[in-house]
């Protein structure tokens, strides 16, 4: 026998009780996977890998290919076919090696490559030699989950935009380096008496290098500036574009006329710095978004439709028709709205209603997309698809709620709204002032006006936000918080009130056996031995409370009711064990009846997340008020609110009531953070000032939320708020630094004493200052 701390030899999850008998494996699936890997001579994998204890263990769950693969296979020229899949469970290089080795040993596979960054698999095979399901079977058997996706749809504009920025960054970086090299010679020449011919040559070479780079690198900024101007607004890109264009034009004019000062280096290095900021920002956001897409795609399961001739096929939920018959296996999420026509089971609708207790379902019960079928397979007749489902109704409510938020204007944008006109006005006044007051000719006056624009060109200002954003979201990503929206951190820093959903957000979403009740250890052992046979969450909770249990023989499960053993022991609902007591249940319960003894009751409660109390205390410490808003029954909500120390709570709220509550709070001027996981929370998430959803939540609420946090603990949430506030402070400091620099430099520029050397030094110094200041945010590891 292995010790209590023994881990499964394949998936690394702890072995408990009787399962240790299977020779060091937690289940038959893991044993088979180990055998498969050894037979291929790939056991190096076990020595190489590093399992992350917090991640889901790579345990084969036997649900096979999740969706029809053939829809996603594309034919390549030369008789090959290609297939792109998302892989769930890849943790380190060893996983990549294992999957690639398993696949390349399959007949017909010409190329298989796993991308560890995006966790995607690209597969190429010869379709006449092997079919994709057979090729992928060993990967499923080892415990990874694969979901096909359409690369054209996912590798969308964002990725192209990111690549475009990277290319522009490379080109301007090359130009900036070389032009700066030439400029240093020119500056040295000013001191040492360089001849005008040599200076002219260096200026011409600079122009040759800089101008194409400016044209190429300015496009992203020019496009955004034009878009803003067309909409009748200004943004930070307007002064950038005008500044760079005027700088380049003036420098070219100086070069043609053999003048002493050209600012090509300023124009190109300004673009280079700004593109670095833009690229890092796009990449950080792209990473968070691809992580969320990954979560979404892995949840999108196909629906098993049974045709009238009994033929079964997997169909994506949106292609199912009303009136068709659908089979929902035990442990599977229902993909459509329908009515049960055959079968009896327990339905968990926590994501939809916030209720933590599963309900019994039998013929005639209506079921909604998003609920989970727990104990037995069900046949459903589809009653609604697409726009008519309850889910689509929630989506519509969410879209309405979202419109209010689209009006939020980022801090940088607000600054740019007055910054651009002020700067351009200053330049204009300078130009007119020199002509009128000093009687200067228009060309030199224009030169001075342009140098004002160069000096005020918001290099540091435009870097101030992206650099802080990148560092903050990178730090949060390491802590398991994905920042999806560009202004999320800014809005998060402004909140003064936190609204929590209950089931799955504040609680773990799993019931736990309560110690009080009339049962003793013997009762528990008997009940748990029956419960081993069931996957019902209450049965699981019983087994968890009694880990060394041996399973009873010949247990029959009566879906929707309970379990019965061979000796006449019965475990289940109060109706199932024929209890006639009339006191109302205050939560989920199970009854155990043994022949000749009075039935005993096991009560359960949904346990709050391990650090819920600490997290709520920490939120209060940050000066936030906390509220609990749940769709569950008032008794249960009250009990939980009491446990975690929330005084302000509301029970029995449907999605509309939640939105109404948030609207009321907003009308009172509160800025609300909504934390929720369910379908019923999605409209409220969209209506809140800012919203966070756990990664275990429904896909629609993860899509509606601004941030997504992973893991079992609430601590990342508190950290996200703290980081957001720190980021806001740093952003403001950076703006102050950048503006302070302008206050110093602008008088110099207006008086006409700024040379390219001074401009270059001032610009680099202010940019570096802003970046260094932002870097202080990354050092916050405790």
């Amino acid at each position, binding site marked *: 026998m292995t010790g209590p701390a023994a881990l499964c030899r394949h998936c690394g999850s702890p072995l408990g009780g009787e399962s240790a008998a299977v020779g060091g494996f937690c289940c038959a699936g893991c044993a088979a996977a180990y055998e498969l890997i050894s037979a291929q001579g790939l056991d190096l994998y076990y020595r190489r890998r590093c399992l992350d204890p917090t991640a889901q263990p790579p345990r084969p769950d036997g649900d096979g290919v999740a969706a029809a693969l053939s829809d996603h296979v594309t034919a390549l020229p030369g008789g090959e076919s290609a297939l792109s899949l998302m892989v769930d469970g890849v943790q380190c*290089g060893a996983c990549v090696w294992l999957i690639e080795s398993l696949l*390349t040993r399959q007949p017909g596979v010409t190329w298989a490559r*796993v*991308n560890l960054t995006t966790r995607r698999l690209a597969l190429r095979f010869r379709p006449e030699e092997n079919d994709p399901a057979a090729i992928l079977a060993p990967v499923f058997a080892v415990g990874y989950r694969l979901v096909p996706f359409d690369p054209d749809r996912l590798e969308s504009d964002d990725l192209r935009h990111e690549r475009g920025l990277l290319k522009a960054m*490379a080109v301007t970086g090359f130009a900036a380096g*070389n032009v700066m090299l030439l400029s240093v010679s020119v500056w040295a020449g000013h001191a040492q008496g360089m001849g005008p011919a040599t200076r002219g040559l260096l200026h011409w*070479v600079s122009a040759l290098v800089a101008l194409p780079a400016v044209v190429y690198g300015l496009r992203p900024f020019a496009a955004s500036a034009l878009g803003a101007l067309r909409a009748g607004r200004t943004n930070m890109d307007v002064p950038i574009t005008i500044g760079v264009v005027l700088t380049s034009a003036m420098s070219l004019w100086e070069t043609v006329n053999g003048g002493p000062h050209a600012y090509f280096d300023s124009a190109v290095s300004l673009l280079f710095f700004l593109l670095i900021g833009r690229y890092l920002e796009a990449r950080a956001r792209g990473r968070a978004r691809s992580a969320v897409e990954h979560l979404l795609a892995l949840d999108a399961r196909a629906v098993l439709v049974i045709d009238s001739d009994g033929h079964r096929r997997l169909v994506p939920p949106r292609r199912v028709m009303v009136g068709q018959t659908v089979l929902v296996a035990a442990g599977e999420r229902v993909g459509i709205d329908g009515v049960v026509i055959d079968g009896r089971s327990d339905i968990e609708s926590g994501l939809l209603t916030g209720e933590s207790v599963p309900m019994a379902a039998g013929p005639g019960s209506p079921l909604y997309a998003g609920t989970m079928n727990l104990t037995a397979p069900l046949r459903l007749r589809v009653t609604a698809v697409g726009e008519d489902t309850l889910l689509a109704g929630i989506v519509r409510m969410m879209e309405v709620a979202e419109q209010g938020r689209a009006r939020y204007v980022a801090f940088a944008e607000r600054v740019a709204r007055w910054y651009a006109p002020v700067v351009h006005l200053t330049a204009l006044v300078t130009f007119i002032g020199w002509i009128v007051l000093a009687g200067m000719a228009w060309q030199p006056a224009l030169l001075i006006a342009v140098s004002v624009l160069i000096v005020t060109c918001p290099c540091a200002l435009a870097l101030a936000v992206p650099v802080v954003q990148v560092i903050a979201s990178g730090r949060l990503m390491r802590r398991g918080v994905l920042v999806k929206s560009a202004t999320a951190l800014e809005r998060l820093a402004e909140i003064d009130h936190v609204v929590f959903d209950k089931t799955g957000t504040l609680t773990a979403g799993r019931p736990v056996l309560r110690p009080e009740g009339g049962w003793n250890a013997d009762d528990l052992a008997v009940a748990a031995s029956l419960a081993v046979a069931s996957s019902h969450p209450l049965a699981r909770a019983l087994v968890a409370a009694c880990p060394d249990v041996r399973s009873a023989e010949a247990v029959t499960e009566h879906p929707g009711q309970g379990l019965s053993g061979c000796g006449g022991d019965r475990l289940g609902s109060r109706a199932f064990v024929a209890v006639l007591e009339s006191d109302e249940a205050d939560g989920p319960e199970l009854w155990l009846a043994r022949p000749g003894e009075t039935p005993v009751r096991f009560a359960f409660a949904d346990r709050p997340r391990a650090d819920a109390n600490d997290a709520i205390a920490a939120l209060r410490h940050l000066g936030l008020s906390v509220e609990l808003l749940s769709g569950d029954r008032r008794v249960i909500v009250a009990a939980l609110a009491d446990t975690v120390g929330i005084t302000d709570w509301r029970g029995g709220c449907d999605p509309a009531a939640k939105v109404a509550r948030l609207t009321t709070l907003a009308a009172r001027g509160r800025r609300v953070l909504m934390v929720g996981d369910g379908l019923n929370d999605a409209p409220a998430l969209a209506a809140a000032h800012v919203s966070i959803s756990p990664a275990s939540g429904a896909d629609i609420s993860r899509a509606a939320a601004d941030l997504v946090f992973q893991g079992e603990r609430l601590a990342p949430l508190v950290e996200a708020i703290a980081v957001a506030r720190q980021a806001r402070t740093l952003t403001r400091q950076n703006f102050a630094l950048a503006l302070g620099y302008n206050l110093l430099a602008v008088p110099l520029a207006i008086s006409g004493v700024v040379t390219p050397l001074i401009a270059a030094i001032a610009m680099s110094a202010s940019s570096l200052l802003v970046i260094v200041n932002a870097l202080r945010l990354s050092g916050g590891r405790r």
Partner: protein
Amino acid sequence: METLLMLIPVALILGLLGLVGFLWSLRSGQFDDMDGAAQRILFDNDDDKAPPPPGHRQEKGSNR
């Protein structure tokens, strides 16, 4: 001063070579999986047939 006529083109050409090299490696997908590339160097199964060049662009172009 004649050295300038040689050194400036040399400097520019060397810089351009680096730029072209970077754009080429970007285009051929070498920047697609930075985490994976760091791990891949540790695999030592030389017996596996070397995968054909990725041809990222080419693959995308052929999808419809």
